[in-house]
């Protein structure tokens, strides 16, 4: 067969037309009358394979969805956290198919808080969350004008993980009461052995500010209050930054670029970092991933208080799931999410699937959780610690301009940690930069 130019052009046109037809066929109708019952083929966008597995399995779990009016299946598309929001908006603007549910990383959610994006794209889940009141943890970060637009997957409560063997060898009491005491001991340990009892991040702005936020929340400080007003220049915030800077100066706290990066892995491996305050998921992604050989040597405890006040716990990070509104499967997706996220069975299944901590506060005291032991933590009854921490878990408020604040604070906070500038001056510099950008 010989191929002439005319034939080639005709073939290319045919292939192009067939491709357009195939692409059009790939789209599924998502708008129309709501489906009230029957087969609900939900679509889900998430960045984390753990959630993908959980939701896929949950759809077939009779204990969770057996008595639902819908029969579920879940098709998952894996997308990076920032791209989920970008694509949600793009698809909505282009009137192209949207997923039934989307996993929204906590740090990305402020983008949804701007100009009514959350209200326009997602179902207000407050009718489901309001009856639970304070019994449902961590709804604040996903609240816009009183509406809750996503349900947190993991409580992400921060506790202190420490090397029991190293603490014993170095004579560090496991029940140190305050940060001030711990940093004093840490300074001595650093001088004697070069080991550190905590870490701060000196990497990118997000890592720096997130680490600082975790410390702030524990002290009772924060970046925004419940009304979204800036509270960066509070006494608590200044005190915490001063204490962190002092810890870095004395060597009690180790400066590491990325809490999940290779340098931290090396610090853990060579037992230079023997304690760290991080959320529960860090045990899996930070400790077990980097130092599996140290299984049984680590323990968890609540965080030492600050002498000036605050609690014994904090929080950092998280991923919540929202339901896209006004679609055929919206009602089905809300029902599915409620069964997975707001029932004790769903929360237990989530913990079993990926060690995601319950967001229903009452569950921490139930035998199902209290009796759980963790081999990596020397068979410690870990929910005794998490339960105590959850009882004092601080609120986490964020606002639409959090990204601006992170970029504004990152540099000055880093300089404060390195001792190049005072804590109050650093925070003031960050706030000035923030206000210059936000007020315009």
């Amino acid at each position: 067969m010989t191929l002439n130019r005319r034939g080639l052009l005709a073939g290319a046109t045919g292939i192009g037309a067939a491709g357009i037809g195939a692409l059009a066929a790939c789209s599924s109708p998502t708008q129309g009358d709501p489906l009230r019952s029957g087969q609900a083929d939900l679509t889900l966008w998430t960045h984390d394979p753990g959630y993908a597995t959980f939701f896929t399995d949950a759809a077939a779990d009779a204990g969770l969805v057996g008595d639902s009016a819908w029969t579920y299946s879940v098709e998952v598309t894996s997308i990076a956290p920032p791209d989920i929001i970008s694509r949600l908006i793009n698809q909505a603007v282009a009137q192209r198919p949207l997923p039934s549910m989307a996993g929204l990383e906590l740090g990305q959610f402020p983008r949804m808080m701007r100009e009514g994006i959350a209200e326009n794209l997602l179902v207000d889940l407050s009718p489901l969350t309001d009856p639970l009141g304070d019994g449902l943890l961590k709804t604040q970060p996903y609240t816009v004008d009183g509406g809750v637009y996503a349900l947190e997957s993991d409580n992400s409560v921060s506790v202190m993980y420490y090397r029991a063997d190293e603490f014993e060898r170095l004579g560090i009491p496991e029940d140190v009461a305050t940060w001030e005491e711990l940093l004093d001991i840490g300074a001595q340990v650093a001088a004697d052995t070069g080991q550190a009892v905590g870490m701060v991040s000196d990497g990118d702005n997000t890592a720096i500010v997130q680490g600082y936020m975790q410390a702030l929340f524990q002290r009772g400080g924060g970046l925004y209050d419940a009304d979204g007003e800036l509270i960066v220049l509070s006494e608590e915030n200044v005190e915490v930054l001063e204490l962190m800077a002092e810890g870095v100066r004395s060597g009690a706290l180790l400066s590491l670029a990325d809490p999940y990066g290779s340098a931290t892995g090396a610090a853990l491996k060579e037992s230079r970092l023997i304690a760290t305050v991080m959320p529960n998921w860090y045990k899996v992604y930070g400790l077990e991933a980097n130092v599996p050989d140290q299984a049984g040597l680590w323990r968890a405890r609540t965080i030492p208080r600050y002498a000036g006040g605050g609690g014994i716990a904090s929080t950092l990070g998280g991923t919540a799931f929202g339901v896209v509104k006004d679609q055929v499967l919206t009602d089905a997706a809300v029902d599915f999410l409620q069964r997975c996220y707001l029932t004790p069975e769903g929360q237990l299944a989530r913990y079993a699937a990926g060690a995601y901590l319950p967001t229903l506060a009452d569950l921490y005291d139930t035998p199902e959780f209290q009796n759980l032991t963790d081999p990596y933590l020397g068979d410690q009854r870990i929910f005794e610690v998490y339960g105590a921490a959850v009882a004092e878990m601080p609120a986490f408020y964020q606002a639409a301009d959090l990204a601006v604040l992170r970029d504004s604070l990152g540099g000055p906070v880093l300089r404060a940690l390195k001792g190049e500038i005072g804590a109050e001056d650093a925070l003031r510099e960050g706030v000035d930069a923030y206000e210059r950008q936000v007020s315009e």
Partner: protein
Amino acid sequence: MTATAAARSDRAQNRQRRWAPYLFISPFFILFTCFMVVPIGAGVYLSLTRWAGLGSPEFIGLDNYTRLLGDQSFGASLGNTAFYTAFALLVVLPASLLIAQALDARGLKLRDLFRLVYFLPVVLSPIIIALIFGLIFDGEYGLVNAVMEALFGFGGVSWLTDPWWARVVVVVLVLWRWTGYLTIFFLAGMQAVPRELHEAAEVDGAGPVRRFFSVTLPQLRPVTAFIAVTMLVNTAQIFEEPFLLTQGGPGESTLSVSMFVYRAAFQRQELGYAAAAGVVMFVIVFALGRLASSAFGVGRTR
């Protein structure tokens, strides 16, 4: 066939002949309009609005441009980008030329291996490169600090967390990543220089240095012009290197204009403001590109 029919046929053929060239060049213009003119026009329009992505953009005139003028972050990103661009032109370009000259030396063994090694950074994934550079330049556990500690007794340089050193690491990455790529262009240009010119210069008593400046460089002028303009335009839009290595930090000390645009659009949902910054970047890059093309004589008939 009647005379009328023949005349009609001729007219049809003439029409076909007249339109055929336009038909053949039309795909480019259709694509150019769809993928360049329309997006640029939309970008310019967006730059005059306030828009978070959903709903209708609100027309605000030149407010975004006024805001850009007073935005210290944008100023910092312009300064950083100028630094990267100057480094690329003043260091990367000459380094590539010198390496190409070395690789072009007569009798060089393993020439293909060297070429391969120099070209390797171009084909490596930027993410892998950023990870490796992160390891090499880590302040606590980095290779560079360890080597400096072993050799000179000090190694506490905060490569990625000190504003000045972070910029240096970014340009080192640019140097490492792009030098080999540019070397290939120079090498190709050098191999096109007639041997007789070198031989004649040699007969006239010119040494290697004189031959380089009097034969090689003038002959490479078109290649150099092309590389310089390409490098200038590419580096003025630098994104991957600072984004993957430092995320623009510490603070905003390595933030580039492209990153500023990305940050405004996809981290802050300020699409109108991002579009304004994009338009400014487009104008600057276009103007610099035209100036450089004119200065280097790109496309000028010799």
